[in-house]
């Protein structure tokens, strides 16, 4: 092969990754980046649906986010945080048991873990309405145990919202934790044992650090959707205890107020990006993606 032909082939080869990337990335720019910037532009507009909206650089919508909608902001963060912590407490033992104590039935248990999430999301959430109903077994049981007062109920309380959030996102928590636990080389635990570490020390010094990437992606994959959720609140909670998602939804689709909705939406995104950035610093995007 002549030198010229070789360099032409080399040049062509260098173009290949860009050609492969182009269609998808252009799609992301048009339908992700542009809409995101549109959100910012909209949030700085003034006006009403009848008169139309005009870009004035008005930041009043953002002032509202931290004054009028502060309770919703607080609820979003509080519910998402509680759901993440409680989800982790349920998911970790479950993932650990599947990874280390199911032997040759491991794949079957993994399948059993994922299957419930094939039931449509809204139906899963509505099922909790039946489970936590006022005449239901759960409320009855809690009343018998005197945990709940005689007139107490779970539906339309924060507990019902939390129950829905934890359940709906449990697969996103359990699966990444399982994946990092499953990767752990048993030789490492044997080595810890040989070096006179007891089971607890081995868990703390070997298993837990190696499970951290899974724990971090799991908590992110729960926190992010939970912070933006409005479905669980709407179906299981009450109108007095709403989250940012509810305000975004209602201001965009019901009582039309685009600038306010856009400002809340962008604030939520910014908060989450800030949070994720702290995590990404620690583990790097590559690991989070795989």
């Amino acid at each position: 092969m002549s030198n010229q032909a070789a360099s032409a082939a080399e040049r062509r080869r260098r173009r290949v990754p860009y050609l492969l990337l182009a269609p998808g990335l252009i799609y992301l720019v048009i339908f992700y980046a542009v809409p995101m910037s549109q959100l910012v532009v909209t949030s700085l507009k003034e006006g009403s649906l009848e008169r139309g909206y005009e870009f004035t650089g008005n930041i009043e919508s953002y002032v509202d986010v931290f004054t009028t909608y502060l309770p919703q902001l607080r609820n979003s963060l509080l519910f998402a945080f509680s759901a993440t912590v409680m989800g982790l407490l349920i998911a970790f033992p479950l993932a650990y048991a599947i990874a280390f104590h199911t032997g040759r039935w491991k794949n079957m248990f993994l399948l059993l873990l994922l299957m419930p999430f094939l039931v449509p999301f809204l139906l899963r959430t509505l099922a909790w309405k039946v489970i936590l109903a006022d005449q239901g077994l759960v409320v009855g049981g809690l009343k018998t145990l005197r945990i709940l007062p005689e007139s107490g109920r779970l539906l339309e309380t924060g507990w019902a919202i939390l129950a829905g959030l934890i359940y709906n996102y449990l697969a996103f928590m359990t699966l990444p934790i399982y994946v990092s636990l499953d990767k752990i080389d048993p030789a490492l635990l044997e080595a810890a044992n040989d070096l006179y570490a007891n089971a607890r020390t081995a868990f703390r010094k070997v298993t837990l650090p190696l499970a951290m990437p899974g724990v971090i992606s799991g908590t992110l994959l729960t926190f992010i959707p939970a912070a933006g959720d409005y479905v669980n609140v709407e179906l299981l909670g009450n109108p007095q205890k709403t989250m940012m998602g509810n305000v975004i939804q209602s201001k965009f689709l019901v009582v039309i107020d685009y600038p306010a909705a856009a400002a809340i939406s962008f604030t939520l995104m910014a908060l989450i990006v800030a949070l994720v950035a702290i995590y990404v610093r620690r583990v790097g995007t590559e690991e989070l993606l795989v």
Partner: protein
Amino acid sequence: MNKARWFYRIVLGVGLLYLYIPVAMVIAFSFNDLTGRKNVSWQGFTLRHWADPFKIPNLADSVVNSLTIGFLSALVSTVLGTMIALALVRYRFKGRASANLALFLPMASPEVVMGSSLLALFIVLGASRGYGTVLIAHILFNLSYAVVTVRARIVGFDRHLEEAAMDLYANEWQTFRRVTLPMIMPGVAAAFMLAFALSFDDFVITNFNSGSLQTFPVFVWGAAKRGVPPQVNVLGTMIFGVTVLAMVVYMVLSGRKIAAKK
């Protein structure tokens, strides 16, 4: 030691019970012989909802919309996602880190934000909301997941086979068609199925961009205010059954292939 074994059995048992009680509820209430509108308390067993699951015309239409949108969005996102995954794993090039970030951001965005930002764009463009806008939205949120799924498959794959094909005078396209694609096919198929499932089940992003179009979740949401008809539970149970079956078949088939290779 034995105490530990019992502990993990209990963890698994309680965990699975917790996971499956809501599933059992959904299935059970598809057989509920209810009289009123609210399908929330047990009133007796019947098969009549199963005999005619498409009794409600809007419900049937919404399922058809969800199926076609699921198929089309999965197809487009899997093709685009596979191309991106190939580029990211096989090539070292400038801008690779930014491409990774661009793919990560949509996955880090809450659905309300993604849905509402798209709506903001469609409002500015004056685009009427409906089938097209929902399809655009679904391809968008499926894309990153498709990349991640295919990429996981490409990472562990032996490049020497491609080099061998090239040595035997196969051109790049032939190598891709005859060597690369068959090897990454399980990942591509998994990406397609995941994308289809995500699309079929999406409510939040769809709700922002659907206008008057009804998909299955949009129908359920609308019905939830008045009381969900038991036919919805019948369809939910069918969806659950079909996808479980598909998953089991896929796992058995890919398990057999791995066994055959060994």
